Structure formats: C-alpha cells, structure tokens
C-alpha cells in the first residue's frame, strides 16, 4: 500500500473515479492548469484533458449552478469551492436547487454533484479562510455532509461521494492535509507517513457514507467529534489520562446515531467537540439526539467544546481553536461532575 497525505488521497480518489467513469468531470477555480491552490487536482488536466478538468470563473453560484446542469445531462461533476468560506455566494444553488431537484420532480430529475471544499482554521488564514460551516448544510434536507479526518477515509469517502446519486458537500479539514495535528501548534509538524490511516490503497475502494468510526475505544467517556478535532480529542484524552472512547462522526448527515448512542450508553458521559462556532453548531444536534436517546444512562451533562462564538481571528487562532487544553478542560468537567 502507498503512503499518502490527504491531498494525495483526495487527488487519487478523483483519479480513480475519472479513470473508471468518463462522465466524472472536475470544475472549479484554478483546478485545471494549476492543479488547485491546495494541489488536490494536480496532474488531472494533463491526464484527462480540458473537457474533463475545467478552470472556472470566480463565481461560486455559477460553478454550482453549471455543475447541476451538467449532472442533469448525465455527467457526474466534482466541483471545488476554493475555501468553504466562499461557498456562501453559491448557497442558493445548493439549498434551493441541488438539494431539492430530486424531491420536487419526484425522482425524474436529479444531479449527483459532489462539492469539495477545504474548511477549518489553523493555517493563519483569518476569518475568511478558516470557517467550518458544516452545521448550515446538515440542516438542509436533500444534501449529505461528509468530513473525513485522515487520508484513508478521505479517499474512500470521496469515491463514495462521487459515485453517490445524492448531492454531497465534502468538507476537507485543511489543517490536516499534510499530517495529523494534535492541537499543539508549537510541536514540529507530523506527516501522515507515521499514521496508520496514511496507508492508502492506490486503487478503488470506498468508505461507506453514514458510518461513524470508533477511532479509540474507551470506557469512561465518549468524545464525539470529526475533522481535525479527532486528533486533538485523542491527544487530550491521553493527556488527561481518561479512558475515553473517541468517535469520528465522518458522515454528519446522514448521521450514524446508533454507534454514538451505543457508546454513550456504555460510558455514561459525553463530550462533543468541533471547530465551528458553538452556538447553533452541529454539536447541538449531536447533544440533543444523544441526551434524548441516552438520558437514563448519562452520569453527567453532555458538554460541547467548540470555536468561540466570534469570527475566527487571524492572530489568535490558537486561542480560538478548541485545542488540547480546552478539550482537556472539557473532559475534566464531564468527568468531575458527580453522577
């Protein structure tokens, strides 16, 4: 098996599906000749030609709208939005069209668009290159929302997304493109080479959409999280010395509630963590569902750790980012409380 970082894994996913299915095409800003500002589409233009890897004008609404039209005509478009923060100009096409065409036409028309977009902070991008807007999309019926936390899942989930007949927003936590990150920016960068999930098959495989993964089994506490924070959570649990079960949600909608519920029933305690602004974030949905389903098993209130309810400030991203320290504090809080 090959070693890949997340960029290579994502590129490999597109390569594998494009090779297999001539209807798969890629479009987005700078994805063609240049290979994408994060290099995720590097080499695809040379291999598949300019009718399948298309540099688009700077108009996210146009990219999503045109991709929908292509999908209606039998293609399987993979659209890149350069930063998740820039998906808003295309929001109407996502919510009112992409998510709704199958429903309103009773299945006669549909468009299997996958929208890939890098999200999250930690690269000193400031407030418009750091957002994690996943909660906004999970609330929209008709689309699915996925966020991998490692190269293996990224490739398998992306292939599954592209092949899915449902429209999917595929969030890529850019902080971990090049290596896992335990939340401590002072430590030297780690590469995916040392991580088991950095081992990625060259060829075709899928990771099913709608399945969470227990990345670290444990008995005392369940930490439900996704994206970059999967790694931070594991490190924080380690640091606190709690036998935490860390669950990577991976597929935010559809949500694999069963896996989460089972774990929380087992541990009786739950911490939810994400990078996005906490108020009205996706963690609220997780908390609401888990408290309802696990009420009689809970020994302490479910707590959420998230980004503060402010924009993501450039200079203070490490104070904003819910890092190891904040997660550790959260873990302690959930553990301390007497049952």
């Amino acid at each position, binding site marked *: 098996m090959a070693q890949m970082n997340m960029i290579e894994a994502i590129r490999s996913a597109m390569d594998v599906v494009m090779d297999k299915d001539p209807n798969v095409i890629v479009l987005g800003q700078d994805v063609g000749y240049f290979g994408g500002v994060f290099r995720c589409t590097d080499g695809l233009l040379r291999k598949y030609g300019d009718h399948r890897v298309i540099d688009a004008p700077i108009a996210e609404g146009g990219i999503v*709208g*045109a991709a929908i039209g292509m999908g209606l005509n039998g293609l399987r478009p993979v659209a890149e939005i350069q930063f998740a923060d820039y998906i808003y100009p295309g929001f109407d096409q996502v919510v009112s*069209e992409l998510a709704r065409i*199958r429903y309103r*036409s*009773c299945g006669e028309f549909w468009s299997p668009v996958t929208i890939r977009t890098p999200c999250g902070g930690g690269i000193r991008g400031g407030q418009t290159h750091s957002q994690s807007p996943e909660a906004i999309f999970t609330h929209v019926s008709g689309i699915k929302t996925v966020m991998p936390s490692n190269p293996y899942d990224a490739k398998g989930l992306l292939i599954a997304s592209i092949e899915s007949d449902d429209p999917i927003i595929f969030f890529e936590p850019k902080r971990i493109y090049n290596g896992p990150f335990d939340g401590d920016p002072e430590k030297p960068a780690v590469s995916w080479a040392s991580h088991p999930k950095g081992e990625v098959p060259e060829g075709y495989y899928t990771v099913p959409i709608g399945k969470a993964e227990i990345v670290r089994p444990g008995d005392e506490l369940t930490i439900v999280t996704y994206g970059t924070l999967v790694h931070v959570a594991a490190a924080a649990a380690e640091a606190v010395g709690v036998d935490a079960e860390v669950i990577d949600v991976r597929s935010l909608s*559809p949500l694999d*509630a069963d896996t989460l519920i089972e774990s929380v029933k087992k541990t009786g305690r739950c911490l939810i963590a994400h990078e996005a602004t906490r108020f009205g974030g996706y963690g609220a949905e997780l908390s609401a569902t888990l408290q309802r389903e696990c009420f009689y098993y809970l020994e302490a209130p479910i707590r959420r750790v998230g980004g503060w309810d402010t924009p993501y400030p450039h200079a203070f991203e490490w104070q904003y980012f819910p890092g190891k320290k904040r997660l550790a504090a959260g873990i302690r809080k959930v553990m301390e409380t007497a049952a």
Partner: protein
Amino acid sequence: MANKSRLHIPKPTARPGDEPDFSYLDLSPAGSVDKPPVASRTRDIEYLSSGLVRVLDEEHHAVGPWNPTLDPSALQVAMRWMMLNRVFDQRMWQIQRQGRISFYMEAAGEEAVSIAQGMALRPGDMCFPSYRNQGLYMYRGMNLVDMMCQCLSNTRDMCKGRQLPIMYHSKEGNVFSISGNLATQYPHAVGWAMASAIKGEDHIAASWVGDGSTAEADFHHALTFAAVYQAPVILNVVNNQWAISTFQGTAGGERRAFAARGLGLGIPGIRVDGNDLLAIYAVTVWAADRARRGGGPTLIELVTYRGGAHSTSDDPTKYRPKDEWAAFPLGDPIERLKNHLIVEGHWSEDKHEALNEELKAEVMAAWKEAQQYGTMTEGPFLDPSTMFDDVYAEPPKRLESQRRRMLDLEKNGGGI
C-alpha cells in the same frame, strides 16, 4: 443632466387612473431588420439587440428577411397550441377562483413565446423554463389531464403533492422542473449545454426568465459561463414589461434593451417581437443553428406584455392601468396569427370560433377526467407518507422513522 447627484427612481409611464403609454417602446416596422448569416461575429450583429425583429406587418402579411415561410398547416397547428394554452389558463384561473386549486399563473398575451420556441427547437434539446412557459410543456407532449392533476395535487400528480400548481416537470419531454426561486434554471441550462458539448452531442439547451428576474445573480452566472465556454445555449428574456408591481425599468430596462445584456461578454442579442410567432420562430431557429454549429450562446429578448395578473394572489389594478394590455402596440399573439392566416386565406373567424369551442370542450373533458383522480376536497387522496420519498436516492434512517411516526400519528395520535 442635473447639476447635483441625485437618486433616480424609475417610474412606469402609467399607473392606475393614467392613460396607458407605451411610447417608451422602440419599435421597428416588420421586415426592417436585416438577417445576418449564422456565422456572423457578435460585433457585426449588435444591431439585432436594438432593433425589433418582426415578420407580421400591419396588414398581417409576413414580410422581410426573417420570414420563416412556414406551411399554413404548421401555422394552424401553432395557432391551435396558442389557443389551447389560453383556454387552458382561463379555465384553470376560474377553477382557482372557485377555490378548487390553491394557486395559478397564466401566460395570457405571451403564448407565442412557448409555442414558437417549442416549434423551433428539436425534441432532444433541453428546456429550462420559467413558470409562465406552460405552453412548452403542452407543446412537448404533456397532456392536459396530467397538468390538471399536478395543479390538483391529486393521486395522479406528477409532483406527488409536493409542488405549487403550475410547477410541472417532464423528463420525457425534456422540460425541466420549475423552481420557486427565480432564475436558478439559467445556469442549469448553461451547464447542461456544456455537458452536451463535452459529450460531443449536438443537443442544445434553452432557458427562459422574465425581465424582472434578470437582476438575479444567476442571470449573470449563466451569461458569464455561457460566454466563457461558448456553450450551445439559447438564453431567453421574456420582457412582458412587468415583474409583480414593478415595471421593467426597475430591472434596469430603461436605458437599453435586455437583448443587449450579453454584448459586454460577446454574446449576441436579438430583440424580437414577442407577440409575433413567425418572428420568434425565425430568431430561435437562427440561434439554435448558431449554437449547434459551434457559434455559442445567443440572448433573445422577447418583447411582450403580461396580459393577466402576476398570479392568482395578485391584483394588478392596484399598480397599472386596467386597459394597458389593450393599448400594447404589439397586440395579442393569437389575434395577430389569426389575422395573418385569414388574410392569407388559410383561416376564418368561424373556424377560429369553432376551434375555440372545441378546445374549451377538450379542456372541460380533461378537467372532468382529472377530478376522478382526486380534488382538494374529495378523494381519492394521495398517501401523505409519500412526502418522505425522493428526498434522497439513499435516504438516512431518520426519514424512515419519521415516516413511521407520521403514519402512527395519523392513525392513533401516538408517538412523536
């Protein structure tokens, strides 16, 4: 020019109580606009965006270079479709007024748009219509009973009760599903056309928006993508002078025709008499031909008038003169084709009247049949739990459990 900066507020030439005044419309006489070769460069055919392509003259003859010289029989067929569109709308409007459907929108005065363009396109071409293009669905094979069942949200409703009346869709007829959000279909048409070119097929796409909707972002997105990739697409702006209560000037139509909107991107524009079936047919064939031969997009502005209210929820006497339609200088598309056929000796007032009655009967018969599939008040009723279908191709588990809870609740009031 004034001597200080000021806010200009566009005002229609007439409001209720005023005399209708269409002096703002630039009209050219029939036959006066040259017809260029399809392969012309955009810069050489800018005149098409400011003139008004017309074929039917004041004496009802078809004249000039754009005369498509269609067979009288083809024109009679076109006539029939336009009349059917109108008769259907009138009946459905009444039906809404009787409270038997929840909503309706008519195309009165604009029927030539859908019928002429329907005729000019090929069956394999894909249409992305607005809510006033019901004529396109009809022309492309949707039967009246199906349309009525959609409006009734009954057991035969193609939309399974999910959509407002008139929001049809036809996979078979290659007519896309109507959206509530204005202009969103425009970039879809461009993307569809791009895909056609990518696949090496020669089908083209066409889309329609109203004058008011040109202000939306998707109008710009569509034009930009169409121009950049030279997509084989026809982008139509149906300028019926009014959005809801605001006139075309509020959408930016005061200084330059909508046909000129793409010129800055190198997209040729044609301004055509939207009530002249022959002219519309001719310019659409021209644009389709151009697109199919690799000439890229064309923007067509169809100058017409919204004869009726915006929708059954609207009352136009609140914001425009009652008799404005009657004063519209381009008349009524049905009357104009009728007069043409009559002067050419292929039609008569009697035949017209007879056809009208025949169509009324056809529509009435359809209405009878449609009601058998259910009405708003009488069964059979659609199964409400179908509302959980088609949200996804592969639905999440929670939708299934919500469906069960809903059924449970309908039955015995239990569960949430």
